[in-house]
């Protein structure tokens, strides 16, 4: 047989790994034909919405639903008393705590769900909510975790035993009635000893403020109980549909095969849509009670005030070094504000997530981390906002500590990083706080980044600017923000990572159709990452069928194999690996079919792009398309018909993407307005599947980092009122505030991942936040600034300048 097409053309035709394939998702989204949860409309569908408390801490004296029930169109008002007989007035959280579904005797944060009004439409529900009369008795409010640990006020009476005893929490002993857990990593005493004897010790306290992922689409669901068949269908904004199915089954008692969870198109997640919320439970109950489908959709205030805050870490650190700047020890203490319930979305054994990656990219021989979780009168959550579990906090901490140490040593911060990086030959590297970094080449990345921005030139320009400022020639300062980050993503190995006891593997199932096209289903769910595009590329390269001939389907638990979902940059590291492994199973069977068709031994054929060829005789081959057809139309001795495979992949380790970022910022000292002149981002995510999508992820993650570092926060007043509950007060950058980013890369493949990929979606956020913050702080370093807390909004930057005497 003769082939007119060159090997290169055959590779191009596949649109496999490494090419910037255009996204298959875009046709429907650009034409307004996406299918998001609020687009779902079912016959007779009702709408549910919540009565929420205006008080942050209060006892509920009474709830009167009589007037609300008179509103035309209102069908039911559920309270905790209605849910109690079903055992659904409380629900388990992902963190081993429990959470009220509807206020059971008291409320613990502003906006907490008190009653669920079910009506024929949104307007009737809103009218009903207005008429539910709730009498509250106000209680003292605590919004400060340090005060909480001293206070006599008990926030969670349900967690205090007889006579005021404190039963252990899910993560061990508790020190105080408002204390949740203490979690440690590393070596306490040896670290303290090294610090006590060190040449130089830099100490700093920093507050990583509370913020929110705020995807453009809020959370919501539609629950439909089919009483005839006993089946519950639940559509929703779920980042982990299978886990939601299991949770719903466990708390409702409905058998898992009778529950179908569907995540339709999701309008961004960023961690907001990982958890299980009262709205889901109430919708399910309301559908069971009314026999009709019930929709619940958060409005923006509900979203910002109640579902899934992120961060809120008060961090204190000590970093020790020799006179030459070689780091010898790191100590970190965190007081973590978890709000009224501990609903953090972390793997079970990690109540502070992977905060113990806080030794960063540096070879630090001794370290100790201690985290205290605390209850306050704030919303529960503690999700990973565009990062793996608590990794933004960890990277911010170490990248600030490095800067503070550089000040202490009077050293250049770029050089201080360089002399402390883990060296290429040290990988796999066992870090002092327990992780084994799989791979890295930090020096190459750092040198490339500094060269790209002409780092020395920037420092010279900055020195000139300071001189000009002091001479009264300018009122603008220049900051050079540096950050080098190592992420830990792809949770994770089942041996140490689970959520509610469910191992954090992921899965892929492939069916090849007779005519050589395919469908693959995964346990993950895209929220904008473009899985339908990139997973098809992985498969195209693995099985030799064009990506354009492969449909990717996710999010329907009736059809997709079980998986733990999409968050913590785990889709590519875990489900991407499952995809490759399932593809290899297909290929193994295809090899046997090809050998049969070519009448040679199995070992005498080899895979080549889109076909199996006879070794040494490339003109004798069978394409994968031909092999697919043969799988369905020929009786091959010893081989079952069909061509399908499934893989459940339990990763042997996490992956460790890294990157080097530089931000150049001009700051108007008199207005506090920063102008981001340049942002350079080098990412190493291992093997690159689709460069276009990687670049898009980097742009997006950096913009969310810009938001968090320069203004975005969930702020409370002393009464526990949320001060930033709308997009008027909660900063989401517009096109006007956002710069153009320069992206770059190095490639250090993961040694344990089947295709060497590490994940990238969260890296730019993790590395970006300290980079923007360091730029602001660096601008003021020549005037004595050591550390100021984020968010660096115009007012706070102005205040920093003012406090340093720059307005005198």
């Amino acid at each position, binding site marked *: 047989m003769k082939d007119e097409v060159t090997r290169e053309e055959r590779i191009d035709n596949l649109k496999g790994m490494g090419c910037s394939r*255009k*996204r298959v*998702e*875009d*046709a*429907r*989204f*650009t*034409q*307004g*034909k*996406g299918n*998001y949860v*609020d*687009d779902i*409309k079912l016959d007779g569908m009702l709408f549910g919405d919540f009565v929420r408390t205006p008080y942050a801490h209060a006892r509920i004296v009474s709830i009167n639903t009589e007037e609300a029930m008179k509103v*035309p169109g209102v069908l039911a008002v559920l309270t905790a008393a209605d849910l109690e007989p079903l055992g659904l007035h409380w629900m388990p959280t992902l963190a081993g705590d429990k959470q009220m579904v509807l206020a059971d005797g008291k409320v613990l944060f502003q906006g907490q769900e008190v009653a669920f009004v079910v009506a024929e*439409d*949104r*307007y009737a529900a809103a*009218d009903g909510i207005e008429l539910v009369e709730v009498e509250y008795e106000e209680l003292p409010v605590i919004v400060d975790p340090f005060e909480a640990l001293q206070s006599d006020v008990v926030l969670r009476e349900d967690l205090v035993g007889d006579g005021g005893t404190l039963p252990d929490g899910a993560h061990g002993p508790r020190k105080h009635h408002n204390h949740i857990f203490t979690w440690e990593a590393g070596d306490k005493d040896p670290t303290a000893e090294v610090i006590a004897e060190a040449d130089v010790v830099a100490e700093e306290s920093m507050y990583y403020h509370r913020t929110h992922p*705020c*995807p*453009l*689409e*809020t959370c919501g669901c539609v629950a439909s109980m089919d009483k005839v068949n006993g089946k519950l269908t639940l559509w929703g904004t779920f980042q982990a549909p299978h886990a939601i199915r299991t949770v719903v089954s466990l708390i409702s008692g409905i058998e898992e095969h009778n529950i179908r969870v569907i995540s339709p*198109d*999701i*309008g*961004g997640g*960023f961690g907001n849509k990982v958890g299980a919320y009262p709205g889901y439970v109430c919708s399910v109950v309301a559908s069971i009670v009314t026999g009709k489908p019930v929709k619940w*959709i958060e*409005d*923006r205030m509900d979203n910002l005030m109640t579902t899934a805050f992120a961060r809120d870490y008060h961090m204190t650190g000590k970093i020790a070094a020799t006179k030459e700047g070689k780091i010898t020890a790191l100590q970190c203490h965190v007081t973590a504000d978890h709000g009224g319930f501990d609903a953090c979305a972390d793997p079970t054994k990690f109540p502070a997530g992977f905060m113990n990656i806080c030794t960063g990219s540096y070879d630090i021989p001794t370290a100790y981390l201690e985290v205290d979780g605390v209850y306050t009168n704030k919303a529960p959550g503690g999700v990973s906002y565009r990062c793996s579990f608590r990794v933004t906090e960890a990277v911010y901490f170490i990248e600030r500590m490095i800067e503070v140490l550089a000040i202490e040593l009077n050293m250049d911060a770029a050089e201080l990083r360089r002399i402390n990086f883990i060296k290429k030959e040290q990988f796999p590297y066992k870090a002092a706080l327990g992780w084994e970094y799989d791979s890295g080449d930090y020096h190459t990345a750092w040198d490339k980044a500094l060269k790209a921005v002409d780092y020395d030139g920037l420092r010279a320009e900055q020195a000139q600017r300071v001189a000009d400022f002091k001479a009264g020639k300018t009122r603008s300062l220049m900051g050079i923000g540096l950050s080098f980050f190592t992420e830990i993503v792809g949770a994770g190995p089942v041996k140490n990572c689970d959520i509610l006891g469910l191992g954090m593997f992921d899965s892929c199932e492939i069916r090849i159709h007779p005519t050589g096209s395919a469908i693959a289903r995964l346990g993950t769910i895209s*929220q*904008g*990452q*473009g899985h339908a595009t990139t997973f098809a590329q992985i498969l195209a390269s693995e099985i030799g069928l064009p990506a354009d001939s492969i449909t990717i389907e996710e999010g329907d638990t009736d059809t997709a194999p079980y998986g733990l979902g999409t968050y913590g940059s785990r889709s590519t590291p875990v489900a991407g690996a499952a995809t490759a492994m399932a593809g290899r199973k297909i290929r193994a069977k295809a090899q046997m079919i090809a050998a049969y068709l070519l009448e040679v031994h199995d070992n005498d054929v080899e895979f080549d792009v889109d076909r199996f060829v006879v070794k040494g005789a490339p003109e004798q081959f069978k394409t994968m398309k031909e092999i697919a057809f043969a799988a369905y139309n020929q009786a091959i001795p010893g081989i079952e018909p069909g061509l399908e495979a499934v893989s459940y992949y339990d990763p042997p380790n996490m992956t460790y993407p890294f990157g080097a970022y530089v931000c150049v910022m001009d700051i108007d000292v008199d207005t506090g307005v920063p102008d981001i002149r340049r942002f350079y981002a080098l990412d190493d995510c291992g093997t690159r599947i689709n460069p*276009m*999508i990687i*670049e*898009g992820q980097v*742009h*997006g*993650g*950096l*913009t*969310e980092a810009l938001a968090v570092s320069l203004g975005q926060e969930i702020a409370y007043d002393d009464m526990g009122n949320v001060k930033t509950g*709308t*997009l*008027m007060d909660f900063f*989401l950058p*517009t*096109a*006007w505030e*956002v710069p*153009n*980013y320069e992206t770059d890369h190095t490639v250090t493949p993961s040694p344990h991942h089947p295709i060497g990929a590490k994940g990238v979606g969260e890296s730019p956020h993790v590395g970006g936040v300290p980079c923007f913050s360091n730029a602001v702080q660096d601008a003021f370093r020549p005037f004595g600034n050591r550390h100021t807390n984020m968010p660096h909004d115009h007012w706070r930057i102005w205040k920093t300048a003012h406090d340093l005497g720059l307005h005198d």
Partner: protein
Amino acid sequence: MSRKMHITMTVNGKEEEFLAEPRELLIYTLRERLNITGPHIGCETSHCGACTVTIGGKSVKACTMFVAQADGADITTIEGIGGPDDLHPLQTAFKEHHGLQCGYCTPGMITRATKLLEENPNPTEEEIRFGMAGNLCRCTGYQNIVKSIQAAAAEMAAAKEAAE
């Protein structure tokens, strides 16, 4: 419970007539009454622009307009801008230049951009960034949205030149 009003409007070239409470917001009229689900709801306070439609030649955020205010209006949504057989250059350019990720802001974004390019067929990057600042995107960082709009502007200019 207010009295219902008799409303007529044209949406994507189609006449619509119905009774509605005056307090009904236009976004719900479109999405729930008329099943036009391209425009989305992101904030209900006019900040995010996911609900952007065109009314009488102006970009309007449908989440903060009462249906009573839209009585008699001529409304265009993303569904009226282009479909599988007649894609608007902006729809093509957003795909070509990766100007979207989750897609939630995209209908409003493209709808707004059609007006921007109508008013200013050859905008600078600064004019695009300023003209699009009423539409929030959480995924893309805007860089590729700007690129998409620039590409569509060039494409439309070339098509216009070819036609002349």
